[in-house]
């Protein structure tokens, strides 16, 4: 068995892993190694051939592969190393156990950065009734089959869920000559970004059925149809008004779950709200030498945010091994009224940097004020004219406000009267 030592090991070479590794190298970590199970660098960005990446980080509109390639060059010139085709199996005390075609590898490290990304929710997660035919894919799997392998997956397509990948695949399949009959969404609002509805659905006149769901799937070998029904206010299907849409393909774009099987082996505490690790503003988990960033921590909508937050994880991991990362009693940050979840969930007081809190709201709303308060003190407020759960938003806490913080921080959303 091979065994060697690194300053920092990063699990995953997607946008989170690459940005964290580069930041760690630039902040004094000598040997930084990425472990990647795929045969190439870049993670899911490699299959996201559509544009819309990098508007914030690079101030230009890039496709996924271009965004990945830029970070690949950054990593190369920063002297980051990688092990491809290698799977991380288990986190032990300052050691990562991996396997590849040469056998088992033990990597001893000073700090570990988790950047494994997320997985798609499947039909099993939804428990849709009906038969079990071929032709049902998660949207991301369909994306990989079409964009990387060049397969044709079907001709008449229904998409369940108005998540971004589902809408992007609606456009992609239409360009590839398929007939996308409908995008079906349980909620009364779009769950992905509005720009994707305009450029992926409206551009190609693909119908979006809000407050609808799929109540049956038929077909023996191949899927033949789905039964669609509107839902009432309690999201119960109204079966009397159901109807059949014939199709040979069903795509599911019904949410993403952070992929934390590895984190659990290292006893990293997870949040039951984000399904990712509980971290402080340094992206440090409950296990002090383990850091987490990107979609393994909480599901983001924009890769630019992932890169920025992952740089924090990389810098912090480098400071940790140098013994300069602040330690202290942590203060909780909790979601108040109208907030679904928030990240980071902890603050170590006394840092020298402002903190960006990322959050999602529970319901779409207009004219709301986001407030972070600690006891009687208001730490930060922000007015937002329109917000939906489909958009991750941020609130910044200044260094001055953090200095003498002692009480739990509550972030809440409230309607503002009389403002337009």
């Amino acid at each position, binding site marked *: 068995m091979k065994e060697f030592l690194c300053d920092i090991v990063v699990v995953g070479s997607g946008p989170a892993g690459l940005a964290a590794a580069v930041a760690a190298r630039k902040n004094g970590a000598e040997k930084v190694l990425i472990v990647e199970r795929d*045969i*190439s660098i870049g993670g899911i960005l*490699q299959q996201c*051939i*559509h*544009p819309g990446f990098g508007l914030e980080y690079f101030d230009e*509109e890039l*496709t*996924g*592969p*271009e965004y*990945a*390639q830029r970070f690949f060059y950054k990593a190369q010139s920063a002297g980051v190393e990688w092990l491809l085709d290698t799977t991380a199996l288990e986190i032990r005390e300052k050691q990562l156990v991996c396997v590849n075609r040469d056998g088992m590898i033990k990597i001893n490290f000073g700090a570990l950065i988790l950047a494994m990304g997320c997985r798609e929710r499947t039909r099993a997660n939804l428990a849709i009734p009906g038969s079990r035919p071929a032709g049902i894919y998660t949207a991301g799997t369909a994306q990989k089959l*079409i*964009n*990387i*392998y*060049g397969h044709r997956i079907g001709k008449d397509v229904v998409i369940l869920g108005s998540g971004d990948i589902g809408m992007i695949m609606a456009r992609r399949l239409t*360009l*590839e000559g398929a007939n996308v009959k409908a995008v079906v969404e349980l909620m009364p609002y779009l769950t992905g970004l*509005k*720009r994707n*509805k*305009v*450029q992926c659905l*409206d*551009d190609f006149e693909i119908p979006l059925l809000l407050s609808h769901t799929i109540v049956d799937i038929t077909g023996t070998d191949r899927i033949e149809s789905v039964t669609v029904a509107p839902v009432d206010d309690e999201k119960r299907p109204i079966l009397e008004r159901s109807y059949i849409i014939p199709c040979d393909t069903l795509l599911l774009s019904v949410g993403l779950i952070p992929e934390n099987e590895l984190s659990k082996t290292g006893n990293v505490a997870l949040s039951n709200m984000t399904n990712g690790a509980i971290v402080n503003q340094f992206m440090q988990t409950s296990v002090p030498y383990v850091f987490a960033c990107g979609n393994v921590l909480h599901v983001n909508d924009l890769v630019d945010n992932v890169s920025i937050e992952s740089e924090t994880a990389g810098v912090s991991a480098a400071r940790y091994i140098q013994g300069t990362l602040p330690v202290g009693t942590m203060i909780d940050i909790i979601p108040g009224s109208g907030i679904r979840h928030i990240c980071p969930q902890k603050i170590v007081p006394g840092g020298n940097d402002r903190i960006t809190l990322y959050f999602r709201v529970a319901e779409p709303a207009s004219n709301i004020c986001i407030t972070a308060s600690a006891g009687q003190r208001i730490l930060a407020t922000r007015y937002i*004219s*329109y*917000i*939906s759960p489909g*958009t991750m938003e941020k609130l910044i806490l200044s260094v001055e406000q953090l200095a003498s913080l002692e009480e739990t921080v509550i972030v809440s959303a409230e309607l503002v009267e009389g403002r337009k």
Partner: protein
Amino acid sequence: MRKSITCIICPNGCQMKVEYSEATGLQIAGFRCERGAEYGKNEFCRPKRIFTSSVKISGANRGMMPVRSNRPVPKEKLMDCMKEVKKISLNAPILERQVIIPDILNTGADIIASMTLERKK
């Protein structure tokens, strides 16, 4: 001529009404900022999109090369761009930004490679 346009510049998603007649010229309503008005005008007069797709490639460690237009093309030409791109097949190595189809359909936009694919060893 009259069109309803959803602004995509920011999450507000303003619903704009854009109307043109010879008597009144171009009239836009429902926007909340200048960027929105500019977007509404462009969407009404000449909507354009970045075109992306993938092209068969042999000799690389994947079967398809992602490609894009280096500048936006008229929205109504997206399907025709797809037909042109389908005619192509590539051989690795191909470098990022290498031109695959110059000036596609006389739009002034080149179809270029979105990534570097080396020859498989």
